[in-house]
């Protein structure tokens, strides 16, 4: 089984962001970076499939500047076999342009299964995986929280709001991974050493035309500081009054 996983390098979200003077990126000083949450789940799922089969190969692909090599090495350290950097130095926000470049790399790669995260936690476009699948002409099941790959069939559970769907297709196929299937393992020392020797190929990204152009980033208005209105059930009447008269939500 040949599997590809597309991973994106994103900043750690547990911080108070500042906007860079350009207004187009966050101020990266002091930020830590890693692969986007759902991409980590996808890498883990891919590695588990090859481990279970005792065969197969996982290729991780990331589009970005040279710093994505660090993210690719991390994926190699937790069990991916090969990595490809699609080099492009400037940030890109148009998911269609990214999908075009990813599809160009995946096309003809002979992959049985191509995996994406459900969403990149920085852009939150939630579309790159499905766009890429369509450009490749491959069937795709998005936002799945369960996956069975057997006898050339893919059976998945797709999460909806307060509901779910059971969905099937046949290989070769594309899936985008939601939470719930697997959490990424931590790299072992052995894994980190092995990752240094695994192949990492660098190619120029064949980006499509960018037609969804970032104009600016802004911090949303801060929430007013909260207030504690009381303790225990004695505070309930005051809460109900505020919900009615002040917040007008009751």
């Amino acid at each position: 089984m040949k599997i590809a996983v597309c991973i994106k390098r994103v900043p750690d979200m547990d911080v108070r962001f500042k906007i860079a003077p350009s207004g187009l990126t966050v101020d990266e000083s002091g930020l830590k970076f890693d692969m986007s949450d759902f991409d980590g789940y996808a890498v883990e799922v891919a590695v588990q499939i090859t481990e279970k089969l005792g065969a197969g190969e996982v290729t991780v692909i990331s589009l970005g500047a040279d710093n994505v090599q660090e993210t690719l090495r991390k994926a190699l350290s937790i069990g991916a076999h090969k990595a490809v950097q699609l080099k492009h130095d400037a940030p890109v926000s148009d998911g269609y342009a990214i999908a075009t470049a990813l599809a160009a790399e995946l096309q003809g790669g002979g992959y049985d299964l191509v995996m994406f995260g459900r969403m990149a936690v920085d852009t939150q476009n939630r579309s790159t995986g499905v766009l890429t699948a369509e450009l490749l002409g491959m069937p795709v099941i998005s936002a799945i929280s369960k996956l069975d790959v057997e006898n050339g069939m893919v059976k998945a559970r797709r999460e909806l709001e307060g509901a779910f769907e059971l969905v099937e297709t046949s290989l070769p196929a594309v899936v985008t991974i939601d939470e719930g299937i697997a959490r990424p393992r931590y790299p072992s020392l052995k894994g980190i050493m092995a990752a240094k020797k695994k192949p990492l190929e660098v190619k120029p990204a064949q980006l499509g035309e960018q037609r969804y152009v970032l104009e600016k980033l802004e911090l949303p208005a801060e929430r007013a500081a909260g207030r504690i209105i009381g303790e225990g059930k004695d505070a309930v009447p005051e809460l109900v009054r505020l919900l009615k008269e002040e917040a007008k939500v009751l």
Partner: protein
Amino acid sequence: MANIFAFAETRLGELRRAGLEAVTAARRVADQTGGQVHAMLAGGPGIGALAPKLAAHGADVVLVLEGDAYANYNPEVLAATVAARLASGYRAAFFAASAQGHDQVARTAAKCKLPYASDVTEFVFAGDSVTVKHPGYTNKIVQTFVLKAPVAIISLRAGAVLPVENAKAGTVETIAPAIDPATARVKVTSTEAGNRGKLDLGEAPVIIAGGRGLKEAANFALVENLAAAFGNAAVGATRAVTDEGWRPHSDQIGQTGRLVSPDLYVACGISGAIQHLAGMRTSKCIVAINKDKEAPIFKVADYGIVGDVMEVLPALTEAVKAAKAGA
């Protein structure tokens, strides 16, 4: 005048609020640019009966794709059919930024070879250009984009546009699928709605969410009861809770769950971890009930009660019932 397209999402034969939001948004743009609103419905036999609701919200024409093949979501047929429709010339197409919408719109955009503005909270049409806002970085940053495309394909975040009645003719037109459903490679074999008939997280104006402070699955009855007292509420949970299996993953709110922004969010026994806040901090009013007065949730809560959920929730439920009865 170019027309405006809206896709009115349904699930198991029921219209979703997000569907009316898309129609309302399309109406707003059409009133500005002078075109007509064409709203599409797809579903099992009988789905066309929902057409008058779309007309009431501003659809000049309702396009109906009806048949057994669409009783469950049929991603490939819908995408092909909508893409064929858009090729006939529209200025914009609105969809819901829902689980179905995210799947459907990306497929449609790729078939149309058009860029796509996802999960939009605000949009401005001015001449040839469309400017949109879309939250990113776990909703911590507002991103503004310019969409350069002949047809602006937009999915709307729940609540970005509220449904407004504005009755139009709503002439019904039955349409044919652009591809034979028998050729679809991706098959949805069943749709399981645990909360059928109830509001879901994407649409409810009120969300009552429970955390590990509830202690066990059975105590979620307290959360359910409060939701029932409101009558317009859905139940959500933290990852601690979904990890324990007390609630399904689809109830999870946060960075790796659903992103919600209801009018009222009541956090019960929730600490307020940064990954949880990522999913709900844009709620209009936040209430927190937690026994630890230092819990970070109180920093974002408009109103906090320091106390035991086992005691406060039943009291609050009774008080809300009384308030609703008196209203």
